[in-house]
């Protein structure tokens, strides 16, 4: 095996693939990156058996062959070589030699035979979506914050991709809040799949500047994200996601329009006094035309902030200030809608104009 490639390109590719191959696996070969050259096509592959990352590397010269090399060591070595140099990697048996100008090093690799064979997506039996990279990044970030890391409830540790009414929507919930974003409209195919949040984080990290569009393919138990030269394949979570549509209240009699920045500020103020009571704050719509955010900490004192806005129906609700702040930070318009009906139904938070993002927060019992 032999490849010749510039330092920048190799270093960038190694950075993308080596993150999931860093030292946690009991099986040593999983800490290696597989370098495969097949008729000028060079790819670097790593896996942690929940997902796999593959990056196609444009090279100037190559000879066919496969070898695996400790990913972290190779990535660090290459990143410290002078930029702009050409690097030549050759392998003989398990010895891998890396040459760049006057720097040469030999790393003990391992034969590719032990590297696990990875599952593939059969494109004929899969549904494929394409989405602009900024929209994807933004949407995943808006939804992912609501996902759970409680491993005893696997279904909630992922983001649910599902189609309904010809929309592809993504949703996540940890039981205390729920976020949903419609990301593609007028879709023809259907999908219902839970993608692990950890895999999505990896996808987000692997997005580079030159990528404009992401292709997402689902089949029965796998999902593949294609972003430029990088392909990420991940398992899906084999669980059923809660029927979350039912959780979103449809008729809220109290609806208040608020400036997002202002609400963030008063919520942060209230949160200071809410630390001893688990972040519990009281939001109240009062007539005439005041929205107040209040918190009480017996030993420290209390806080009560008012925002002027139009209030038609009065009512109040107890919320966890951290969840409210997360929701407000996920919204992206200057003005937002804060809707609720009574103390036991959740609050619905939306942008004032666009309707594609919905964030609901469960109230705390008062």
């Amino acid at each position, binding site marked *: 095996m032999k490849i010749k490639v510039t330092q920048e390109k190799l270093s960038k590719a190694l950075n993308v693939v080596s993150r999931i191959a860093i030292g946690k696996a009991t099986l040593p070969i999983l800490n290696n990156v597989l370098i495969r050259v097949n008729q000028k096509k060079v790819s670097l592959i790593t896996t942690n058996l929940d997902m796999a990352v593959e990056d196609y590397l444009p090279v100037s010269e190559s000879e066919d062959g496969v070898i695996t090399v400790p990913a972290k060591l190779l990535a660090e070595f290459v990143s410290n070589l002078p930029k702009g140099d050409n690097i030549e990697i050759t392998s003989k048996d398990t010895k891998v030699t890396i040459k760049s100008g006057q720097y040469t090093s030999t790393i003990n690799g391992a034969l590719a035979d032990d590297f696990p064979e990875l599952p593939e997506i059969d494109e004929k039996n899969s549904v494929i979506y394409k989405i602009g990279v900024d929209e994807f990044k933004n949407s995943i970030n808006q939804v992912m914050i609501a996902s759970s890391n409680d491993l005893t409830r696997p279904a909630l540790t992922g983001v649910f991709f599902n189609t309904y009414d010809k929309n592809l929507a993504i949703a996540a919930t940890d039981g205390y809040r729920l976020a949903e974003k419609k990301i593609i409209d007028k879709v023809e195919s259907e999908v219902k799949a839970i993608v692990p949040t950890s895999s999505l984080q990896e996808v987000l990290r692997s997005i580079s500047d030159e990528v404009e569009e992401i292709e997402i393919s689902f089949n029965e138990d796998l999902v593949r994200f294609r972003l430029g030269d990088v392909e990420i394949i991940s398992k899906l979570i084999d669980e059923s996601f809660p029927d979350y549509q*039912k959780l979103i209240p449809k008729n809220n009699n109290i609806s208040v329009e608020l400036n997002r920045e202002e609400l963030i500020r008063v919520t942060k103020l209230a949160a200071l006094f809410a630390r001893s009571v688990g972040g519990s704050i009281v939001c109240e719509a009062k007539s005439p035309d005041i929205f107040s955010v209040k918190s009480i900490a017996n030993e420290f004192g209390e806080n009560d902030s008012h925002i002027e806005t139009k209030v038609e129906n009065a009512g109040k609700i107890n919320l966890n200030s951290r969840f409210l702040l997360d929701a407000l930070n996920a919204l992206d318009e200057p003005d937002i809608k804060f809707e609720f009906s009574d103390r036991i139904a959740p609050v619905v938070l939306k942008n004032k104009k666009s309707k594609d993002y919905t964030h609901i927060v469960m109230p705390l019992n008062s």
Partner: protein
Amino acid sequence: MYDVWKNALAEIEQQISSANYSTWFQDTSLISTQNGDIKINVKNTFYVKQLQNRYYDIIKKALENNNVPVKTISFEVQTTNRHKIRPREITKDTSINNHLNEIRNSIHPQPKNHLNSSLSETGLNQKYTLDTFIVGSNNDLAFSAAKSIIDSPGTRYNPFFLYGGPGLGKTHLVQAIGNELIRRNPNYRVFYTPISHFYSDFIDSIQNGKGKEFNRKFQKLDCLIIDDFQLIVNKEKSQEEFFNIFNDLYQLNKQIIVTSDRLPNQIKTVDERLASRLTWAGAFDLQLPKFEDKCAILRAKAEQIGAEIEEDAIEYIAENVNTNIRDLEGKFSTILLMSEVRGLTPLELIQNGSVSVDTTSKMRPVSPKQVVEKVAKYYDLSVAELKSKSRVSHIMLARQVAMFLLSKELKLSTNKVASEVNVKDHTTVMHGIKKIEKSLKLNFTLRDQIEEIKERLYG
């Protein structure tokens, strides 16, 4: 089967490096070995190819060394370890379940949509809950077993076999278990089906060539509830299918719940192997409620629907309805309805004789002669044979059944009964009735026979 896999794993562990073993085999389990088609459960798709290509021969050999015939090996992704994770403790104000319920209620005050959707998936009716199941001396054992199942499904009481006469709450209890399991862990896959539906679904699936899917659907469950098991049909293929599903789930420590009106070995159509397996973890019965239990049931029922009823009326009804809980509740509802219509309190209604609580009264009157004739005919005897002094056991049984019915149904005195069946005196009659009463408790065939005779009498 489970142990076979453990043995096979131990063998495999010897042959490969420990890192390889713990990476590739740690979370595997055996799903089925039917007909040499081995199915192995793996953690996710990433494990499939590696096991298939690198370890196929090792697995095959290890299984064959443990006397499991191997034709094919396939690897599937199923989340079988879910039941090992205990449902999270539910605390009042934080759990999603509570919120979900609250929210559901607030969105759909009458959760009709939800009910329908859950019916199709789990077969459960949400109206059955543990809160509404009244515990008394007649069912406390079964109830505590049910609670233990909810806390740790698939362990001690597996399979859970529940039996008792009609209308005593079997369906209520088992559906309540299913509902509670789902409430504690919404991901728990529970499926409730009367055995008759199981068959028709099975036959449909075979006709549509979807037999495998049918099997797969059941193998994915965490808890299978089969109701009215006594209606099991003696068709080899379908009983075998049930037997296989039962075994598969049992091996995987999935909870199996079966209800029936009698013990499995008293159901003629049941294969012996299956019969013995069903009661591995014991059999729990629901008995007829005693007077105090009946009063408690009625009081709870009254409270549930917010009706007012005098204690005396409750006691009167409890004393006079002796069939089952369903009749008890039915009678109770009728009285409440009448009391509303007529503007009298339930007790006033009873006292002025507008309602009769005696459940036998609705049947048309029969003469002692008819009883004797029907019983004789049922047992293929002539009336003369029945009335003879013969001590042949089947004739004696018929004679005693006749005595029993004359006394219980027609409320004849023992002397009168003696003359109707031509026996010496009332002590013989008393002995005969006692004998029948005693065997009724254990002998379900006799119970069926008597029910059938009654049907012919009044029908």
